[in-house]
């Protein structure tokens, strides 16, 4: 577990007392907050192509009068609000990239109580990063700590958290605490990371394939055999473990035998050894099926996370729970595999919070509620202020 501050607590009384004022301020800046979300969210930002979005984010910060802003070499958008003492550095981070391609319509529709658009629950994180400085300004809040606003690039999928890892490896401000933001759900409270392996299995039928052999119906049936074998792997209830079969893609049309199929999947577990064990079993399945079918089958593991994090009793988690209780938000404890994991790897105490509520109305479109955002914004600001208040014995 990360952090050695368990004997301390954050003083949340000041921020909690000001929560009604924060919620009110968030309501007052509804149009500006939605504007930030629209301006950022309407720019397509698939992983590795998120620079336009992070540039827009940085422009928003510059427009707020933040001087120390830049887009770094990997495409992270960064803004730093210097604190009065600058003794510690608080990182607020949200991923800028999304799983949606540039050819998808990213227009956002604004209705009185909700927004509809592509990847909204992702872009709300960065939208919130752009809104908080305005909120702090309107409330006359100045921090003692430096506040680092980071819209990370190369986070999802094959990005494998490259953006935040690059930032943590190269930035000159050692991060004291991290608060990661996700668009939804409001109430999300992640303080630990689960172990994870993310991989592709590619099944390719060579052109000189012997069609008289087992599985001679092409790559689809061979991949089907692999999936059946993966599904047969026994999973323990404790530690909580699962295998997510996320995507399958292959073939070209009705009357041609598929020559290639790709399966994308993740193994997740609270226990690193379990992740490792299942990885090995899947590796065996791949080797065995390749031998039987004569197809070329490759397993490509391109991302992994180590489980870890802080305890539920850590001052940072306690402080977030106190703030949520004061706002009548029910905490939804869930582990994280996103930016949070990189912070844990660097022994930085961190939590992940959600800002609003959303639901997917199609593979591409989210419907995001507006009114929960007020509490979501207030919660983040209060958490930052509590951390900024320092540690009291």
């Amino acid at each position, binding site marked *: 577990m990360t952090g050695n501050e368990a004997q301390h607590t954050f003083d949340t009384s000041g921020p909690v007392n000001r929560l009604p004022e924060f919620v009110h301020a968030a309501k007052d*800046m*509804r*149009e500006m*907050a*939605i*504007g930030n979300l*629209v301006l950022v969210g309407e720019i397509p930002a698939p992983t590795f192509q998120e620079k336009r979005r992070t540039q827009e984010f940085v422009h928003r910060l510059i427009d707020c009068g933040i001087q120390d802003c830049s887009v770094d070499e990997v495409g992270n958008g960064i803004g730093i609000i210097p604190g009065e003492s600058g003794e510690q550095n608080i990182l607020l981070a949200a991923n800028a990239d999304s799983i949606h391609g540039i050819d998808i319509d990213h227009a956002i529709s*604004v*209705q*009185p109580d909700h927004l509809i658009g592509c990847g909204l629950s992702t872009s709300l994180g960065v939208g919130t990063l752009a809104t908080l400085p305005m909120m702090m300004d309107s409330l006359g809040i100045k921090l003692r700590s430096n506040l680092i606003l980071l819209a990370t690039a190369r986070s999802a999928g094959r990005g494998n958290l490259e953006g935040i890892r690059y930032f943590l490896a190269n930035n000159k401000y050692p991060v004291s605490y991290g608060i990661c933001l996700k668009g939804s759900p409001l109430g999300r409270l992640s303080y630990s990371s689960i172990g994870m392996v993310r991989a592709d299995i590619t099944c390719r039928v060579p052109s000189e394939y012997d069609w008289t052999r087992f599985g001679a119906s092409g790559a689809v049936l061979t991949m089907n055999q692999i999936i059946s074998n993966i599904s047969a792997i026994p999973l323990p209830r404790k530690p909580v473990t699962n295998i997510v079969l996320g995507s399958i893609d292959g073939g070209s049309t009705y009357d041609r035998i598929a020559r290639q199929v790709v399966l994308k999947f993740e193994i997740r577990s609270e226990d690193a050894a379990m992740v490792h064990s299942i990885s090995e079993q899947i590796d065996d399945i791949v080797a065995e099926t390749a031998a039987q079918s004569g197809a070329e089958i490759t397993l490509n593991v391109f991302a992994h996370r180590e489980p870890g994090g802080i305890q539920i009793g850590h001052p940072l988690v306690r402080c977030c729970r106190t703030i949520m209780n004061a706002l009548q938000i029910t905490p939804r404890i869930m582990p994280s595999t996103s930016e949070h994991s990189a912070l844990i790897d660097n022994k930085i105490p961190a939590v992940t919070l959600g800002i609003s509520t959303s639901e997917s109305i199609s593979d591409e479109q989210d419907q995001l509620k507006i009114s929960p955002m007020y509490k979501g914004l207030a919660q983040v600001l209060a958490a930052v202020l509590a951390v900024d208040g320092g540690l009291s014995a």
Partner: protein
Amino acid sequence: MKFNRTIRHPPSSDPREAKRVGSSIQEWIDHNTYHHSDFRDIRKLVEAKKESGQTISVCIPTLNEEKTIGKTVVMVKGELMDRHPLVDEIAVIDSGSEDNTREVAAEFGADVYLASDILPDLEPKRGKGENLWKAIYQLKGDIICYIDADIKNIHSRFVYGLVAPLIYRPEVRYVKAFYDRPLVFSEGVRPSGGGRVTEILVRPLFSLFFPELTAVIQPLSGEYAVRRDVLQQVPFPIGYGVETSHLIDVYDKYGLSAFAQTDLDQRVHRNQATTDLGKMAFGILRAFLARLKSLGMVKDLPDLSVILRQFQARDTKYEEIEYEIREEERPPMITIPEYKEKFGL
């Protein structure tokens, strides 16, 4: 100050005159064509506006725009009223939407008016031009910026890009939007122009009768910002001809130098069917011919039909469809007594 019509002659076919027009157009383009990024420093623009003492109103004419009006209001209010105090007033003038356009606009802080409630003693007319005209009475600003409600990629540049030339240059009176910069283009030279109706109707007509106006890259764009003292003096066709007539009337009074145009990059909006463009072209042509006549540039025009005839095929039979398209016109607002009283003229 009123528009006194003088007889204007069609342009000469003399090559020297053509050369003069060409160099005049180029000079205007060089000095009066902007890109919105020229005005990206909004803080500076707000300072300049404050110093000039001018006020700015944004008018959004609507009819059943509930899907897009929310974002339009949010972007203007959030960015240019709350974040930067550039705009003093945002108003929706609605033609009687049957959906929730008015409710959505009001929810996000726009002043919402039903066009028929403005100057209610006048005989009501329906059309976008009617809303634009009534906005002159209803809104308070020294500059009125009109933007359509159906822009999918609405951005604050649609407003600041248009009002900025009016703030920085007192001699500019009318700023028109155009949408040009392509995302990717491999050659150094590329064609630059308007939509289909512009290129096959309006620009050829301007080339024949008002060659300097051909320099306005997108004469039919629905986004423009104008000084009140100009708006109040021009008559308003309430249909398709309003933009074309404005250009002719302002050009006739002030010349090309009164105009500027700003490239707002991409504008994503609903694409119109060719038959709808036919109706638009019909309305524009009627308004255009009426202007030629009032300027004395043509003499004996017959009574023009108000019926546009289009055809559709049903199996092997062809059917005629008739559309009645009237280009009614409101007089200059300054001739309306209620307006004069309200603004102390």
